[in-house]
Every structure is written in C-alpha cells, then in structure tokens.
C-alpha cells in the first residue's frame, strides 16, 4: 500500500509551505513535492493604481526583503519614465541593498540554519532554534544579532525605518545622505567585520561534519542565473543578467530587465501556488535554473573587494566547475555578507556620496517597464504595463523563490530518497528534508501569485495515509 508522508508546516522558513513525500508499496520514495500554500495577489490588486505608488505597495509583499521589492519596483517605474537616476542616488540605493543583504543573510544563517549546524540535525527539536544556539554558543548568538542589527540600522538611517521603508522613489531617493549619518554608519563597520569573521571561522569548522548532507542536499547539475558587472565582478543592484549551464558555460549574457521578460517563461504545477520560471529557449523543465548566493558565486569571477575575493577563491575550490550542493549556500551567504560590509565601507569613502542631487523627475514616457535586482535569495524582476495616465494595467513579478522552485522540489526528492528507507524515517531525517529547503532560504510570502486560473487539488488521507478522496478544481 502506498503512503504519503506530510511535513506541515515546514519550520524555520519565511512564510508557509508543506512537503509531501509519496512512498510506493515497497516503502521506497517515489516522489516528493514542496508546496507553497499562501496566496498574496499583489499583481492583481495593484491594477488601477498610479505607477509611482508601486514601490511603496510592493515593499509590503514582504517584511524580510521589502528593500528588494522597493528597488526592483522603482527601476520598473524608471523604465516607464525613461530616466537614468543620478549616480549618487544609485550608490545610496546600492548601500541600502547591501545592508539588506547582510541582515537577511544573518537571519538565514544564524536564526534559521545555525540551530541545525551547531546543535546537529538530530538534536532535540525542543532546543533546535535560536534560543538553543544562544544557550550553547552565546558569542555566535550575539554575532548573529549584531549582524542583523548592523544591516537594519543602516536601513533605518538611510530610509527612515527598518521594515517597509520609504525613501526609494521612482527617479532616485527622496533625501541625500548627510555627514552625520555617514559617520554613524562608518562607526558600525568594525564590529560587523568582527562578527562576520567569527561566523566564517565557525562555519568552516562545522562544515566538515556535514559531508553526508552535502552529498544529497540538492546536489545536482543545473543552470544558474544572476546579475553580474561587465568586468565579471559581483553585483546585486545594477549590471545585467548572465545565465550559465551546469559546466559553467555562458548560455546568455547581458540580459537586461526587458530582455528577461522575453526570455523567461513561467510554468504552473498543480501542487503549488508559486510559478516555475524557465529559460524559454531550452523549454520546461530543461530551462530551469537556480538563483541566489550559490548561483551568484558560481557565475562571478571576482567579488571586487579584497577580503571577499579571498573567500571567493576558497569557495570556488569546493568544486572543479560550478559548486552544485545547495548546502554550500550557507558558506556563500557569509562570503556575500563580508562583501556587503566591504562595499558599504568603500561607497562611504567617496565624498560624492553626500551630493545633494539624488532624484530625477519625469512622467510617463513608455507604456511598460521592467526592473531587476538581486534580492538576498536571488534574482527579482518586476514588470509593469500602464495606460497613458500612468495607471497600472498589468503587473508581473518573478521572484527568487519562484526561480528556485524546480530546484527545491528536486532537492526535496533527492533528500527524501536518501533519508526515507523502507517506509521508515526519523525526526532527524524529516529535519534534514526541511533543511534542504532552508538552504535556499525561500521567502514564501513573496513567491505566491496567481497565474490565470488557480489549480486546486484537495487530497483527503485517512489516518494510515491512504487516499480516501480527491477533489480537483481546474
């Protein structure tokens, strides 16, 4: 008799999701899915709103990465306006994005994943959380809190508040940076370096204990997508997209936001409210790809800052070609956090960061526009269409977690096959299957949108796992 194992909810993620594992009659894993069960509807209710409201509206998709949506949305609006924002505004936005990168990666590493890494995948679930980490390793707990605080303080200093900030508007930002705020940010940097150094050191010692997990945590060849600069250095705010294949060969380069909207399609699967983006030229699912820290570090040749460059060199030694196991995303996040601190320091060293000209103005000059950015979790694209009055007629968002949907599902299946044997599993096995998803650091609040009609299947299982009834609405 076949059996379905359900993990619901999946813990230590942003948002709500569930995993189902289908066993065959021999108790072997036949299939597994990661279901995203939230519906948000932002693309629908923004229709009819003036385009310049979109950054503020879209920031409210998420409380973890509002800055990403703020920036991608503003860039889409600027495409509609056909403006290039002042250089100082671009640098200020870059700093905001970097601050978000650091605080988001700190949350992912310290709060969501370090309980597994420090306490063990099989540790008592009652203690396997941030309080358990704090009790076992206070210094690392403090480092995590301090790194989050670093990023959040900068966001608050620049944009007025930590969650759903304003300040970023179509055309630039509303206010320049003054010297007092610049100096406050600079004063935060030494402690941030110390804390990320602590985390990197701790992680490198811990990683060796997880060789078995590394082998089966979404460890498979895939394509990768990320922003990159023309000099092939790391970039999360501007630049253009590069798509590479499993061997590291470039499939397409220089992809602008508008080209992205032509090149990427979206498939729908009946078991999730999240779409499944893919590179159209390769079809679905062959055109699926991964985004996020692993993809970014696989694609770039240099970080562009000295300490992060050294760390990148060490990271790339993990494999001869692209690094494949999603477990290494933990390492990649810490390298990116280090880069973020270095880059913020570099930006603040330029006296031009205090320039007063930080906003360009214009009306509607095009009836559609797209903007792209690297959110902490991966590539984010906002695409809007407007009428002559600038009212939104259509909006589409492709978010990082959506890009990674296919890979997360494959990863869950791979881990399920490794850890569920003869229909038997331990709590640690189920935790490991959840932990695979956590390596992607998905933000499920962002990634749920409607696409045409919403397939809905309700499966009724009896107490022993037998399917009793199934209701479908297509």
């Amino acid at each position, binding site marked *: 008799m076949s059996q379905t194992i359900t993990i619901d*909810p999946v*813990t*230590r*993620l*942003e948002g709500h999701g569930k995993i189902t594992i289908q066993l065959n009659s021999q108790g072997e894993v036949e299939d597994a899915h990661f279901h995203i069960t939230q519906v948000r509807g932002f693309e629908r209710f923004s229709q009819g709103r003036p385009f310049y409201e979109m950054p503020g509206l879209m920031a409210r998709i998420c*409380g973890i990465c509002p800055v990403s949506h703020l920036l991608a949305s503003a860039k889409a609006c600027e495409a509609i306006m056909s403006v290039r924002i002042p250089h100082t505004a671009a640098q200020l936005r870059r700093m905001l994005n970097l601050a978000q990168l650091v605080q988001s990666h700190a*949350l992912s590493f310290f*709060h*969501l994943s370090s309980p597994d890494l420090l306490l063990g995948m099989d540790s008592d*679930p*009652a*203690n*396997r*959380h*941030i*309080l*358990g980490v*704090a*009790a076992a*390793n*206070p*210094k*690392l*707990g*403090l480092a*995590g*809190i*301090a790194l*989050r*605080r670093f990023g*959040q303080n900068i966001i608050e200093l620049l944009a007025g508040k930590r*969650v759903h900030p304003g300040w970023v508007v179509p055309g630039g930002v509303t206010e320049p940076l003054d010297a007092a705020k610049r100096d406050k940010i600079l004063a935060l*940097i*030494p*402690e941030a*370096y*110390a804390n990320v*150094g*602590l985390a*990197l*050191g*701790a992680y*490198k*010692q811990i990683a060796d204990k997880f060789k078995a997990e590394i082998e089966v945590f979404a460890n498979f060849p895939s394509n990768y997508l990320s922003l990159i600069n023309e000099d092939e250095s790391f970039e999360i705010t501007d630049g253009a997209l590069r798509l590479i294949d499993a061997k590291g060969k470039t499939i397409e380069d220089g992809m602008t936001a508008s080209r992205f909207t032509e090149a990427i399609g979206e498939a729908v699967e009946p078991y999730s409210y999240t779409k499944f983006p893919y590179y159209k030229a390769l079809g679905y699912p062959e055109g699926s790809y991964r985004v996020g820290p692993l993809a970014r570090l696989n694609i770039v040749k240099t970080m562009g800052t000295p*300490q992060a460059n050294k760390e990148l060199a060490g990271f790339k030694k993990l494999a001869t070609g692209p690094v494949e196991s999603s477990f290494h995303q933990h390492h990649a996040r810490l390298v990116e956090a*280090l880069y973020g601190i*270095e880059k913020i*320091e570099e930006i603040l060293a330029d006296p031009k960061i205090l320039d007063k000209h930080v906003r360009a103005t214009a009306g509607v000059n095009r009836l559609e526009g797209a903007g792209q950015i690297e959110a902490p979790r991966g590539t984010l694209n906002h695409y809007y269409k407007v009428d002559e009055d600038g009212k939104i007629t259509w909006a589409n968002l492709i978010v990082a977690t959506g890009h990674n949907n296919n890979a997360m599902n494959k990863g869950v299946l791979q881990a399920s096959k490794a850890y569920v044997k003869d229909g038997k599993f331990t709590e640690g096995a189920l935790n490991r299957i959840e932990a695979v998803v956590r390596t992607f650091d998905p933000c499920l609040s962002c990634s749920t949108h409607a696409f045409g009609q919403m397939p809905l299947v309700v499966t009724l299982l009896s107490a022993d796992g037998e399917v009793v009834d199934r209701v479908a609405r297509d």
Partner: protein
Amino acid sequence: MGLPRLVAGEEWKAEVRAIPDNITTPIRCLILACGNTTRSDDGVGPYLAEWAAERFRNNADVRVVSRQQWTPELAEEVAAADSVLFVDSSVSSTPGHVRLIPVEAKAGNSGVATHHLDAHELLGLTQALYGSRSAHAMLLTVGTGSTEFGETFSERVEAALPRAQGILEEAVLRFLED
C-alpha cells in the same frame, strides 16, 4: 580595513557579556510593545506605547519601543534595561480583559517560529546571550475582540483602554521606585 584573525578551535565560545556594547544608554524601565495597527485590536500594543511615550516623555528613565513583532535583536534593548514591561494584545483572553502578569524566562518552543518571539522567549534569549536578569519583567495584555483588517478597536477593547493605561502607568511608576 582588514579582517580580524579568523578564530580556530573552541575560541569562539566566549564568555557572555553583561550589557551589549552598542547600547550606550542603560535605562531604568523599558516599555516594549508589539502589534499590527492595521489589524483592529492587534494594534492595542502600539496604541498603549504611543500613550506611554507621551505620558513619560519628560522622564529620562523610561524608554518606549514599539514594533510589529518582537525579534531576537530586541534582546539588546531588554538587556540594557533594569525592568521591562511588555505590552501586547492577547487572543487567549476575553475581549477587553486587561491582565498584568510576571514574565518568566523560558527556552520556548520556537521550532515553528522563525524570527519572532513571545515575551518569555525574548527574556530567555536575553539571559542566554547577555547573562542579564531584569529586576522586574511584566507582561500587560488586553484581550482582543477582533483582528480583522481595520484601524479601529472593537467596542470592548476601546472601553478597556483607560484601565490598561492606568495599569501601565502604575506598573512603570512601581518599577521606577525600586
């Protein structure tokens, strides 16, 4: 700016610190509220925080912090305070019921929770990280009648606000006397 020496061995398990270095101003009393002002009665925490900020605006011994939810970073604020009064709505109390209870630090069951904590867990985290113990830690709650979308309170919560303000004020003044 170079990186500090990367640590090896067990060196990174260091002693806890009593007060976070970055909090420059230790405070006698912290009022720490949470709630969502767009979800009707869930906004009672921020409402009372705003009232308290005005009530104690001339008192340098009182700091008021209001957030949508309590996150681990707030452990730093709690560690720097002699006493802390948590303020929140409560779905487990009858609508409009005002309650003031001591808060005991606990490890909590944060397997499901990601980055938000309840008062007990936040206190537990503070003690685990900073080794500090508050002289007083109390939780003031007002029972919710409605958490529907909206920016007004239900009738019973609206009626309970003067009592909640009175209990809040009395608690803070008692903390300051000790």
